[in-house]
């Protein structure tokens, strides 16, 4: 399952930060971030303004940290920014494509801007444009592209110099569901088949949980959580129970609590913290409901949305 990672010890870190901090005047964009990111696909999740783009710009050595340090592929981002940028690909969150140039010409040019000789730049550009799925339209001016095609062109330029790490800042931004699935599929292939480490941001955890091996969650510039995606889902995955009947929710909650479970009401539902992993939880819920004589409407695993993570944090602190 984790064939790429060494068996013992910490995995070879692609990115390592220690107390990384960035303030813009009074705005604390990133605060004391210490995290390690390995190979494979890592999702970087957080609400608007959480500091995702700030972290990426720090990792590229484009902005200087207020405090702390960061290493990318073994290079310090402050003192060896150029080495970092030579080995990293970047897909920015905002528009960055000149409208009067074709994707083909533009990607060739940017390959050369990463140091590839012209002939290799042509070959590589043709290859990555094929991988991202830009066909004949690659010869058209990019001003005529749909949002989906633009994101593909942006992805192609991030890959053209065969980086060892790509930083993808909201690659699914503005895409319809089909295009988003295609983009996520590409992200997954880059990490698994191309062997390039990926750090991909989104404000939706649900979007990234499918494709990422690890998830890092930021909230207001602080690290909320960093773990394997599986652990993450196990730990936060509460069981949601809906019951029907006279005062059913309160009675059910109290009965479950008396069995040593952590139960919180959430709107018309009860959320049972399943972190401690009782294998018989479903049976227990069914039996308790039966004893109380309340109607059991549904029992389902929680949807792992970013709001739940924040909820966990709020309860813990």
């Amino acid at each position, binding site marked *: 399952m984790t064939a790429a990672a060494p068996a013992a010890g910490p995995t070879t870190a692609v990115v390592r930060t220690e107390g990384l901090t960035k303030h813009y005047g009074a705005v604390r964009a990133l605060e004391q971030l210490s995290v390690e990111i390995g190979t494979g696909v890592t999702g970087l999740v957080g609400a608007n303004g959480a500091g995702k783009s700030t972290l990426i710009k720090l990792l590229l050595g484009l902005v200087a940290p207020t405090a702390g340090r960061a290493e990318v592929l073994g290079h310090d981002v402050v003192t060896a920014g150029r080495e970092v940028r030579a080995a990293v690909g970047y897909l920015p969150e*905002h*528009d*960055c*494509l*000149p409208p009067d*140039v074709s994707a083909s010409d533009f990607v060739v040019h940017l390959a*050369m801007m*990463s140091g590839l*000789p012209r002939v290799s730049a042509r070959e590589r550009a043709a290859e990555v444009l094929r991988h991202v799925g830009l066909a004949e339209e690659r010869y058209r001016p990019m001003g005529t592209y749909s949002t989906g095609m633009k994101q593909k062109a942006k992805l192609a330029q991030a890959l053209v110099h065969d980086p060892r790490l790509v930083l993808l800042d909201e690659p699914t931004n503005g895409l319809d569901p089909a295009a988003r699935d295609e983009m996520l599929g590409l992200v997954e292939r880059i990490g698994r088949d191309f062997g390039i480490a990926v750090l991909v941001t989104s404000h939706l955890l649900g979007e990234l949980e499918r494709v990422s091996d690890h998830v890092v969650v930021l909230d207001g510039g602080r690290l909320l959580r960093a773990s394997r995606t599986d652990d993450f889902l196990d730990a936060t995955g509460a069981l949601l129970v809906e019951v029907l009947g006279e005062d059913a929710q309160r009675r059910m909650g109290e009965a479950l609590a008396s069995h040593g479970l952590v139960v919180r009401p959430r709107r018309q539902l009860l959320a049972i913290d399943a972190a401690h992993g009782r294998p018989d939880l479903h049976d227990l819920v069914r039996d308790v409901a039966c004893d109380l004589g309340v109607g059991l409407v549904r029992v389902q695993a929680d949807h792992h949305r970013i709001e739940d993570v924040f909820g966990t944090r709020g309860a813990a602190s």
Partner: protein
Amino acid sequence: MTASGTPSRGVIHDLGYRPYQGPRLGEGAIARALVVTGLRNAFGLGRSGKSKVLPFVLLAFNLLPAVVVAGILVFVGLEELPIGYARYASTTQVLLGIFVAAQAPVLFSRDLRHGSITLYLARPLRAGTYALARAGSLLLATLVFLLSPVLILYVVALLGELDVVEQTKDAALAVVLALLLALSLTGVAGLIAACSTRRGFAVVGTIAVLLVGNGLVSAVQSVASFEGADGVGEVAGLFTPYSLYRGLLDAWVEGGGVTPPSGVGMEVAYVLVLVGLSAACLAGLVVRYRRVAGR
């Protein structure tokens, strides 16, 4: 996944991802590639069809007098060139001004306006190197504009069997003056374009500074000369690239002129201001792009 070996040629299905193992060139080679691409872009090459129209129309008009001179040589013969090498640029300065004003935004505004600057700055090229490479493209484009008529005139002069030594000396002086002028125009137009993401503002601003500024200086110089206050005219000449060029042209090549710099001190001042202006503008460009990078 591709462990089964390299797929044989002619197989259509997905070839899988192949890592790149070839050379990766350093910052110098990357900057050179950027200069060459930028030079092509300044003439609309590698861009849309209609972006080639303006630069080539201007270039054609700029070459017209030189071509006419060549025609006269062929049909009539020449005792001397009807127009000096260095005087040429002063005569066609309006065309030159429009060319520089219109093409500087191609190199300096587009990447800022479309956000593509981010993609450059996320690569090994430093912000300062990017700025200087862009300036290099504009400088070369301006030199193409300035020196191609000089080259035509020189060939005409040699074909017309004029004195080779004298012609070569005059042409060389014109090249030096062209270099000084091109540097300062690049600096001024580049800085204005880099500070304005709107192409229209950059074009109008540059034309205002270059041509309108020069018009004002010329007016002051005429009045000063008429009033017998040549010193005032000489100092006024320090304020725009065109008047600096004209002053040195009058002093070094042709003699005469309205209020040319008198004495070595003033000539040195003219050269220093031209060079200093260029250097200051280039430094401004470097600072400007470092700021952009830090955002």
